[in-house]
């Protein structure tokens, strides 16, 4: 069974918000309708977004790390938002594991948002239905797009390649290998939701330089160094320079 998901590498995310704007651009222009904004240039702007990049400071000054943390729907393998939906508008696709909302069935009761511990569902204040990340289901199967572009808009936009997209149930896929090799983890594992999206943990960037990397022990050029150094006044090869 396929489970499409994102794997987000916290080592390389620079917090540029390109995925946020790219997501908004793609999803507000799609066939499912716009994502509304209020006062976009006013005093108290607000709007519907599927993806957010948040920033956390870990540690105590001066030993701090700034962690940029992109967050969108995690497409849980056991999504708590789906069984609570009274109309069946909120559902998880069997064929690829994407969690979607049928905007034509949603009554806007917000119960699914209450049932999501990650806060990734946002009601659209003007369409009055619950909206969420679709994992760009309208891109990833679009045969009119070149195959290299059949990825979510956020993945396409990421300048540092911090967002990987693929099938985490296929052990040979790039995302599965990234999870295995780098210790990819899930958010809030305590609730048993089994998020499909994984995060690759920060690891300390350290350059290990050993003495012998800089200077070879058996460097033949150093053989000369074992000879006694000639005195300053002793004649040199060209009678001008000294050792």
């Amino acid at each position, binding site marked *: 069974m396929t489970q499409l998901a994102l794997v987000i590498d916290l080592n390389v995310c620079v917090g540029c*918000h390109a995925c*946020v704007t790219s997501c908004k651009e793609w999803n507000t222009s799609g066939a499912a309708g716009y994502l509304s904004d209020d*006062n976009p240039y006013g005093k*108290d*702007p*607000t*709007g*519907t*977004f599927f993806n*957010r*990049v*948040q*920033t*956390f*400071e*870990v*540690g*105590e000054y001066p030993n701090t790390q*700034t*962690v940029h*943390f992109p*967050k969108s729907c995690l497409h849980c393998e056991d999504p*708590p938002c*789906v*069984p*609570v*939906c*009274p*109309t*069946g508008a909120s559902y998880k696709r069997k064929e690829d594991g994407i969690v979607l909302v049928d905007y034509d*069935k*949603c*009554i*806007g*009761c*917000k*119960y699914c*948002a*209450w*049932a*999501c*511990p*990650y*806060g990734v*569902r*946002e*009601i659209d*204040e003007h*369409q*009055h*239905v619950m909206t969420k990340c679709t994992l760009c289901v309208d891109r990833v199967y679009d045969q009119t797009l070149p195959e290299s572009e059949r990825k979510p808009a956020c993945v396409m936009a990421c300048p540092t390649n911090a967002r990987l997209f693929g099938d985490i149930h296929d052990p040979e896929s790039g995302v599965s290998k990234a999870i295995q090799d780098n210790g990819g*983890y*899930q*958010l*809030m594992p*305590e*609730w048993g939701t089994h998020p499909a999206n994984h*995060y690759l*943990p*920060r690891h300390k960037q350290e350059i290990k330089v050993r003495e012998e990397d800089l200077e070879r022990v058996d460097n033949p050029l150093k053989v000369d160094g074992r000879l006694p150094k000639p005195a300053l006044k002793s004649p040199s090869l060209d009678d001008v320079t000294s050792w």
Partner: protein
Amino acid sequence: MRPAPSVILLTTLIGVGQGLFAALYTAQVFDRIGLIQGPTSPVFYPLGCAIALAFLAVGLGASFFHLGRPERAWRAAAMWRTSWLSREVIVLPAFMSCVFLYGMGHYLGWPQHRIVPGVDATLVIGALGIVLCALLFLCTGMIYACLKFLQEWHTPLTVINYLLFGSASGLMLATAYAAIVEPGVVRFFAAWAVGFTLAALVGRGASLVRNARLKPRSTLQTAIGVKHPRIVQSSQGFMGGSFNTREFFHDMSSAWMRSVKWMFLLAVFPIPLALLAAGLLGGVPALLAVAFLVQYAGLLAERWFFFAQANHPQNLYYQRIS
């Protein structure tokens, strides 16, 4: 969570309607068994059912204001296999039909025609109504109790308290109603009202103690998966508000929360009981109505507090604007 007025009204109003119906049926059963001298007024049951139906209907109407797309509300009956909300949507109209039939039966004089000795049609419809009434309390409570990461709600006490509060307020209304229409059964209802109000005090007290001792299972560490004791958010990712900052934060001070708690603890329990005692002993029926009104107002505060107290784990992600 930010308490929604529509949901506060829904849960409190249908509680009163359910409690009132249960009170009426209990009176009929006790009368039939011969434990009390039952009501003799012909309008007692039909009018009582009409009042219960009015509370249920207004509650149901209030719930529509919670929906973004009320015109599609009929779809909410679809997922009764998995969703407690869907189950409530089915049980509430079924219960209302039972209350209507029960009142209609009394109005048409069905109790005079026994199906089998001692049992008439209203008794059977009423029994079905009581089952649906209990199921409705279960559904309403489970809507909140089934959300396991809302730890303040995820306890059997949530369902128990919905049952106790609904019954207590309905019985309080039944007492006030009987004082006007059928003074003979006032003391019967008053005794039940006192019993359920005290039981609700025990139930709510238990949940308040439990919630004060809760330790949140989700922390910033599990929320972003970084194992460090000191993590602070420096940006939630946007400078204005969003659905997440509006829906899940009540933005009230802890002093306000404390005062609401004491307000409802006084208005739901001691004051109505004192008014009830004064009304019964002093023979002032108006005080019984006041007792119900005070308790209902207290229940509005109680429900507000119930929603506001729930601390959603998503709030960990929305701490700081910058």
